[in-house]
Every structure is written in structure tokens, then in C-alpha cells.
């Protein structure tokens, strides 16, 4: 079953094209990783899929609903998804209350909210921070709270914009494990952007390569990571791999 089906999505900022004719399909339970250089349009595409922005033209079906032509059903669809932004913001309350917010918005009973929130905080390794003011957390801790806040809703589709970019390798590994487990156990559909090609290889069921607002390649990792030698994708992937090797050495 298709969870996301986008056809010919176009988005512009004034006259500047941000996304050009993006068409993609994400199957239920798939882990779709979007890679591409900075400014390629990954966040723009994710925001459209998260119903935070509208495309100028194109069709978008999420969970079987034509979300562009059915604005009255957008809230229902948004409640079946969750989106972790690149620079997440913590609300001015405790960590536990932060994680409880999406459940309160869904009118989940109080006792269940507390149980689920504490459980998810434990999964991301933040259980000891439950009573602490979320505004006092470091960037990495805030990121983990944001991921817990999204996971607590048990979304059918989870959108993540570079969720491990602010984390140290140990925390990033833990988050990857949580995401992989969620995808496996709950059949959650993941759509995630990343700069980390190794991470993309580890998590992806499907990889999409965005370059200059165009989806230039889309397929399983073994296909995408073995491009033709003279293609722009090969240059990007080759550069990124070399960069990561260099970072590992230093």
C-alpha cells in the first residue's frame, strides 16, 4: 500500500524554483532516505510532505487522501504523521510535558499520556530528564526530546529532517536504533533527510537523490550508491564518501 504518492510537485520562492516536477512513491513501512547537497530542496520537500507548506502545482496523496484538494482532512492526516525538524524547538515546560503535548492534543487519557511519555523517553535515553525544563537542554538533548515527542504519537508516517545532525556518534547510534526498531516493529513509514551516506546505507529501504530541486535518482541503496562514473550523482556521492573518510581520519 502506498503511504505517500507525489506527482509533479513544484515549489518556488518568487521566481526561483525550489522543487521541480518531483514525483515519488513511498510504500507503507518503507524507509525512504533523501540525500543531496545543501540547498537541493530536501527540507522544502519534507515540509510539503508534512503539510506545512503547499506546492505551487502537483498532486499529493498521503495515506490515500488527496491532501491538496481536501484541506478539511489535513488535520486528520497530520495526526497520523509526525515531523521532526532540523532545528527542533523545545516548548517552555518540562521535558515530560513536551512529550505529552501531542497526546494531549489528541485527547489521550491522562494516565496513558504519562505512561507513554515516560516509556518513549526511556527509549531515547532521556528518562532522567523528565522533570527538567526543556529549555535548559543542550542541542543534542533537545533533538532527542523532539524525536521522542514525534514517536510518542505512534505515527504511521514519520518525517525526519536530519535528525542526528546535532548528535554525537553515540547518541546518533541510539537514535538510529530506535528509528530502525520503530520502523520494523510498528511498520512506520520513515521519510528522512540526511547528509550521512553511511546512515543512508544502514537505514534506507529506498534512497532518493535530490539535486538542484530535482529528484535525479530514486531506488534501492545498492542501485543509488553504484552510479555511473561520470554522473552528477557519482560526483556528489564520491565527494561525500571522501569527506566522511577524511572526517573519520581526523
Amino acid at each position, binding site marked *: 500500500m502506498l503511504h505517500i504518492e507525489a506527482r509533479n510537485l513544484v515549489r518556488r520562492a518568487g521566481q526561483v524554483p525550489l522543487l521541480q516536477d518531483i514525483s515519488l512513491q513511498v510504500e507503507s513501512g518503507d524507509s525512504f532516505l533523501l540525500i543531496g547537497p545543501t540547498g537541493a530542496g530536501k527540507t522544502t520537500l519534507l515540509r510539503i510532505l508534512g503539510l506545512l507548506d503547499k506546492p505551487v502545482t502537483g498532486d499529493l496523496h498521503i495515506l490515500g487522501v488527496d491532501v491538496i484538494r481536501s484541506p478539511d482532512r489535513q488535520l486528520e492526516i497530520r*495526526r497520523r504523521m509526525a*515531523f521532526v*525538524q532540523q532545528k527542533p524547538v523545545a*516548548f517552555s515546560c518540562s521535558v515530560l510535558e513536551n512529550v505529552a503535548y501531542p497526546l494531549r*492534543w489528541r485527547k489521550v487519557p491522562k494516565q496513558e499520556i504519562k505512561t507513554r511519555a515516560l516509556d518513549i523517553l526511556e527509549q531515547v535515553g532521556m528518562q532522567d530528564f523528565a522533570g527538567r525544563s526543556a529549555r535548559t537542554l543542550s542541542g543534542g538533548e533537545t533533538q532527542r526530546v523532539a524525536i521522542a515527542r*514525534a514517536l510518542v504519537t505512534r505515527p504511521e508516517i514519520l518525517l525526519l529532517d536530519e535528525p542526528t545532525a546535532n548528535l554525537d556518534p553515540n547518541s546518533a547510534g541510539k537514535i538510529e536504533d530506535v528509528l530502525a526498531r520503530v520502523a520494523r516493529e510498528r511498520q512506520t513509514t520513515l521519510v528522512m533527510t540526511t547528509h550521512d551516506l553511511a546512515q543512508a546505507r544502514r537505514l534506507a529501504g529506498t534512497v532518493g537523490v535530490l539535486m538542484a530541486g530535482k529528484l535525479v535518482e530514486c531506488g534501492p541503496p545498492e542501485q543509488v550508491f553504484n552510479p555511473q562514473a561520470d554522473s552528477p550523482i557519482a560526483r556528489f556521492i564520491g565527494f561525500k564518501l571522501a569527506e566522511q573518510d577524511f572526517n573519520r581520519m581526523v
Partner: protein
Amino acid sequence: MSELWQGILRALELLVTFDPEVMAVTFRSLGISVTACTISALVCLPLGSLIHFTSFKGKHLLVSIIQTFYSLPTVLVGLLVFILFSRAGPFGDLGLMFTPTLMVIGQALLVIPLMLGLIISALASLDKTVADTAFSLGASRFQAGILALKEARYAVVTAVIMGFGRAISEVGLAMMVGGNIRGFTRILTTAISLETSKGDIELSLALGFILLIISLVINVVLGRLQQVRSSAAH
């Protein structure tokens, strides 16, 4: 100078002995302004959120118009309310002229543009990610609005207090639509105006002190809120 000193002593005497006339005027003044301010807040909080979260043509123009009304002269609002509610006006049949109810309505009309503009500014200064995060986690527009108001609570409370300050300190409107009737519509500012013109400096000073005390309390509350906010952020 001695007259001023005597005035201050007399004012303190009126205050510490809880002079019935002074207390009555004070509580009436507080009652009218708190009611006007509460009504204004009930209008401005949802309306401010709605304007902030809705995209529509002419939004910037509307916000500019609201901001222009920040400095609306109180006598002009008084004149408008007078015309509307005088016997010959469209609402003359309600018989509200020279009543505390009309003073509340007038003060609310005076306060609403200021409070509304400041609430819109407070929400606009909030990180856009807050609203985006709320929407992306399944909040409705109403729920996102409540969250945004909570996140901007310091600036929102400041807007409400500024509105209260404008209401309790205005004199022109209260004089025009309240009539300064003793024991009925006389409030702190109209009483000061009247007693000064009569030469009763002591009573005017006592009432002036009370206004100052109210302002002081407002500032202390505001300062306390600021401390709470900054301590919560660290």
C-alpha cells in the same frame, strides 16, 4: 512647598485611615478598568491569534491600522461612544449614558487596539518553528494558538498590563461618558481632575498616590514575571 508637604501628609492620612470616599473611588476605578481589560483580553487573545495564524490579503495594512490606533486620543473615543450612546444615537435606547457599564465599553474600545497590536507583535516575534512544530505534531489551529500564546506569555502579559495601564489612567473618556457622578461614575482620574479644580489638593494627592501605588504594583508584577521567565530559561 509647605502646601505640598501638608498635602502629602493629608493624603497619607486619608490612605491609612481607609477614608470611605477614597476607597470607594479606588475600588470603582479598579472594577471598571479590570472589567474593561478582561473583556479586551477575551477579544484580543483569540483575535490576535487568528490574525497572526491566518494569511489574507491586506493583513499588513490591517496590522498597520491597528498600530495607528495605539495613540488614539481618549477624548476621541469618548466622543464616538458619546455619539453612539447618547439619547439621539443608535444605541440611545439602551440608556447606558453616564453609567459604569458605558465606561467599561468605552475603556474596552480604547484598550482593544493597543492590546491586539501588542499580542500580534508578541506572536510575530515568536520563533516560527514553534507553530510549525505544533502543526506537525497534530495540533489544530486553536491548539497551536494556545501553545503560541503560552510560549509568548511574557509579552502577552505585558500587552494585557499595558492595556490595563491605559484604561486606569485615562480621564477624557471617563469624564465624557461617565459624567463623574459622585458615588456612581466617579473614578480616580476624574476625581483628581475635579478635586484639583476645586482646590482640594490633599484629596487629589491621595488619589494620585493610589494611582502611583497601582502602577507600582503593576511594575512589580511585571518584573516578577520577567524574573520567573529568565530563571526558567537558565
